[in-house]
């Protein structure tokens, strides 16, 4: 067996051998203490608060991606549920409205937001005398100044006819407040969809021109990423859908449904994967270990799972379900220490304490390298990855202790005659090395083609039902869910108004007013409001205004209108009311839009502007003279910022993990040749994985980063094990340990390739590629290179 001159070797070997001797004959005690610890850990685990939201996979740092996610998640738009109703040809008249009424009656707090307060023409009429002076700009006043008596007569005639028509009942108050129709053009340019007065719930409804379809827009206080409540929302939606009138079909789309679809698929996948991988691993154990005592090796990862779960349960903030799922898979593969010790102590005729001591050095150094690689994830911007890192660190520590201290006593009963181990597989260097070199060259070529995923599709499992609903709603109602959101934040409400107005002015230079949804035209900053009020009074006190008022009086009287017919309007021309506030806008039936665009919060107020998500808004705001307190969040560019964040995170992992394992390898082996040899599996695995990904057009996503960490962390162990026993061909224990633990890892992760969730599938495929190359490299290339250099 080849030995290095590492300074840690004698110390470790002595300590571990001495511990083994001291505990010899105390198998029952060891078993009892271990069992007690596991039971205690199980009790602690049961008390854990499991978080089923996906917050663990969203950045919580100050990066652009993190900020964007936080901002977007805080908007009501992110929590909006779109319900599309379609009436079949034979459906009864009114069935569509009855269905919408039923949905509004059933989809109520706490899972859904209450409808905005009802408003109507009367409330809107009450708003106009306050709103017109604050909304009418110079262009509106100039237009009014050009009104001839003919135009006034025309408008009043139309008002007269309207009052006599059936609709006159509702229009009367509105006509008294705005007989000349000033508000129409102002409201029209204020918003394309939102600022039309609605009678309560009708503001949440869009109707198809054919009268056979209706879109209901419901808000919810439930965060988009909350899996548990998203499930309750879906159950309520399904139950309500079942009670709809005959002939009415319902389709729904929301961020919650994406959360639910992903979480449910991941859960199902993990259940299948854990079962199948456990069976596959157990079968490998039975085949290669060929003793009933192998059950103890199998139990090591299982025990470690319980201990690691208990460890993270003690952390504040709860345990992410995703941590348990992935951690389970990751630690299930970390059986190599147990395997190494098992094969070391079961060699016929060896001193078992000495064998455990000899195995300690590569096992401890390997664990150190793996822990270091996983430890890098502790600095991730994703809370779920940080928790996963801690979970794995606890697991690796526990696995190391169990493998070196407890396991050797359980798998080597006193007086038992151990059968000889079969020889490890071996291939001649003249075959191995050319194949390896060819793979390395091809891998390097392919690796240059690999790209980062900027579409988030790899993280998203979209069910066929959701896809159909999304397409139908987009086709019928337009792309309601993809809009750039501009956040204008102020320490006070007034400051937010000023910044929001500045945003609107800047955007109005690039985008048409009808493309923008903003409160700014109706609700500008104090300075503009005051200026408009001054202009308004100056106009009506001036010659044009006075003439217009006189024409209104004369033409009105000629048509039969009473002297006080337009009193609210005339009053507003001389004594305009205060500019409308959010309360009056809500009362006038604009509650839905006000609440969607105004976000009160601690320490300030944020106003939103919605614009088409085509990059024009971001470009207009990014120019010289950047506005303070402004942030642009574009769902379309989420992918870009995520890709940037992934890129940075990935490079950080790669650099730091590489440096750390280089350090551990340097600490383990002093010779440069041995150090390089120990890195062969990692190098080969990574290069082959990226090469194949590049060649097959697979992109790097969040889950591939975990795969990279796994390959770096586990494959370096194989290198350390094999180089520690340079004459591995003559040392079947080491090569057997590497082969079996490599096979269990490949089997475990290979099952992931069967997953339905694209992210898990991608993780499985990449790990399969990496380990598929790293394990043969450890088993064949290291011995071949050793033989060649030793020749």
């Amino acid at each position, binding site marked *: 067996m080849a030995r290095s001159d590492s300074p840690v070797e004698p110390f470790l070997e002595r300590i571990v051998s001495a511990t083994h001797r001291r505990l010899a004959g105390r198998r029952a005690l060891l078993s009892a203490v271990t069992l007690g610890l596991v039971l205690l850990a199980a009790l602690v685990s049961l008390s854990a608060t499991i978080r089923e939201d996906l917050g663990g996979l969203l950045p919580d740092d100050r990066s652009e991606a993190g900020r964007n996610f936080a901002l977007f998640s805080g908007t009501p738009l992110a929590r909006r549920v779109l319900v599309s109703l379609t009436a079949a040809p034979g459906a009864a008249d*009114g069935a569509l*409205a009855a269905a919408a009424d039923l949905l509004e009656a059933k989809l109520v707090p706490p899972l859904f937001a209450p409808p905005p307060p009802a408003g109507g023409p009367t409330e809107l009429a009450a708003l106009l005398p306050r709103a017109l002076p604050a909304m009418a700009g110079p262009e509106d006043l100039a237009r009014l100044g050009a009104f001839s008596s003919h135009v006034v007569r025309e408008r009043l005639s139309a008002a007269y006819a309207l009052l006599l028509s059936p*609709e006159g009942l*509702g229009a009367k108050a509105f006509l008294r407040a705005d007989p000349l129709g000033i508000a129409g053009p102002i409201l029209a340019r204020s918003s394309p969809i939102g600022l039309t007065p609605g009678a309560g719930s009708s503001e949440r409804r869009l109707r198809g021109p054919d009268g056979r379809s209706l879109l209901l827009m419901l808000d919810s206080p439930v965060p988009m990423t909350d899996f548990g409540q998203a499930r309750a929302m879906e159950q309520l939606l399904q139950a309500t859908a079942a009670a709809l009138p005959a002939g009415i079909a319902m389709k729904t789309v929301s961020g919650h449904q994406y959360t639910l679809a992903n979480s449910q698929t991941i859960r199902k996948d993990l259940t299948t994967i854990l079962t199948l991988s456990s069976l596959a691993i157990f079968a490998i154990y039975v085949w290669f270990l060929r003793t009933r005592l192998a059950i103890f090796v199998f139990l090591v990862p299982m025990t470690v799972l319980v201990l690691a779960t208990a460890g993270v349960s003690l952390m504040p903030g709860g345990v992410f379900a995703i941590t348990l799922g992935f951690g389970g898979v990751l630690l299930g593969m970390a059986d190599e220490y147990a395997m190494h010790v098992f094969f070391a102590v079961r060699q016929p005729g060896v001193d078992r304490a000495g064998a455990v001591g000899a195995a300690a050095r590569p096992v401890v150094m390997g664990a150190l390298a793996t822990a270091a690689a996983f430890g890098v994830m502790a600095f991730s911007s994703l809370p779920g990855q940080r928790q996963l890192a801690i979970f794995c660190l606890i697991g690796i520590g526990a696995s190391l202790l169990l493998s070196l201290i407890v396991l050797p006593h359980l798998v080597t009963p006193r007086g038992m005659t151990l059968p000889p181990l079969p020889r490890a597989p071996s291939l001649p260097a003249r075959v191995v090395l050319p194949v390896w070199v060819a793979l390395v060259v091809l891998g390097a070529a392919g690796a240059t083609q690999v790209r980062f995923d900027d579409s988030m599709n790899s993280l998203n499992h979209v069910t066929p039902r959701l896809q159909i609903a999304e397409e139908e709603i987009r086709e019928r109602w337009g792309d309601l869910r993809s809009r750039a959101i501009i956040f204008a934040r102020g320490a006070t409400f007034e400051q937010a108004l000023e910044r929001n107005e500045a945003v609107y002015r800047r955007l109005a230079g690039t985008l048409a007013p009808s493309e923008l949804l903003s409160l700014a035209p109706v609700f500008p900053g104090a300075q503009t409001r005051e200026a408009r009020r001054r202009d308004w009074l100056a106009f009506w006190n001036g010659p044009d205004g006075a003439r217009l008022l006189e024409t209104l009086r004369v033409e009105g009287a000629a048509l039969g209108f009473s002297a006080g017919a337009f009193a609210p309007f005339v009053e507003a021309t001389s004594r305009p009311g205060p500019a409308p506030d959010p309360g009056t806008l809500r009362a006038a039936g604009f509650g839905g839009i006000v609440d969607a665009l105004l976000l009160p919060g601690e320490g300030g107020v944020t106003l939103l502007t919605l614009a088409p998500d085509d990059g024009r808004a971001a470009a207009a705001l990014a120019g010289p003279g950047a506005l303070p307190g402004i942030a642009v969040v574009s769902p379309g560019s989420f992918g870009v910022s995520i890709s940037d964040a992934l890129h940075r995170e990935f490079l950080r992992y790669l650099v730091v993990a590489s440096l750390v394992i280089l350090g551990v390898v340097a600490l383990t082996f002093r010779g440069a040749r041995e150090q390089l040899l120990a890195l062969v599996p990692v190098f080969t695995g990574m290069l082959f994985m990226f090469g194949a990904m590049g060649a097959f057009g697979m992109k790097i996503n969040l889950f591939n980063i975990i795969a990279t960490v796994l390959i770096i962390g586990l494959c370096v162990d194989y290198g350390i094990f094999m180089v520690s026993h340079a004459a591995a061909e003559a040392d079947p224990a080491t090569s057997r340990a590497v082969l079996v633990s490599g096979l269990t890892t490949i089997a475990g992760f290979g099952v992931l390739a069967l997953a339905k969730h694209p992210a898990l599938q991608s993780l499985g495929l990449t790990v399969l590629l990496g380990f598929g190359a790293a394990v043969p490299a450890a088993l064949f290339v290291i011995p071949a290179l050793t033989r060649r250099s030793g020749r």
Partner: protein
Amino acid sequence: MSRARWAGVCLLLAMAAPLRAASPQDEVLARLAQGGAGIETAQGRVRQEKRLEIFQDTVVSWGRFAYRRPDRLRWELTDPVVTGFAITGGSGRRWHGLTGKTEPFTLESDPMMRVIAGQILASVRADFTPLQKEYRISVASETPVILHLEPRVANPFVERVIVTFSKGAGHVESVAVREKGGDQTTFSFSDVEVNRPLPDGTF
């Protein structure tokens, strides 16, 4: 009161409920509905009288209406302005003489038209039971039948609707819509013909 006594009172009330006699009001409404059930078509002249604060004087308009069971209605004014609408089921068209435009609409998308059409349909059918969800209906007089309809939920427009039937209660003679603030619109129906054929294309 003890729990047992409460239970006893509740039991008595529950037993008494089915035995409650139909009120005179229910009887009148049922009689009207029964009479309305025989109406297959109806047509006639309409006189609309608007006494509104916004006008100097009372404004009188004239027009016509036509109805065919179950849900077809044409309502139009022809003098002094031309305006009206025609519906079949939940959708229809409306026109304004001043603009010369005709536009389609649905009752679902126009709450105001839904209310107006609902009231007119109830009037021409002489059946007010469908309106009981939205209005408290009381019988102010039995001969001739006069109904008072008050919105169950505060309504920004309508304070009270007064429906007066012809002496034989065969059809509605007038409907007065009284608004908050004192404005009132009264529709009077004359030359009403019931179950006479209507020309095609009326609706």
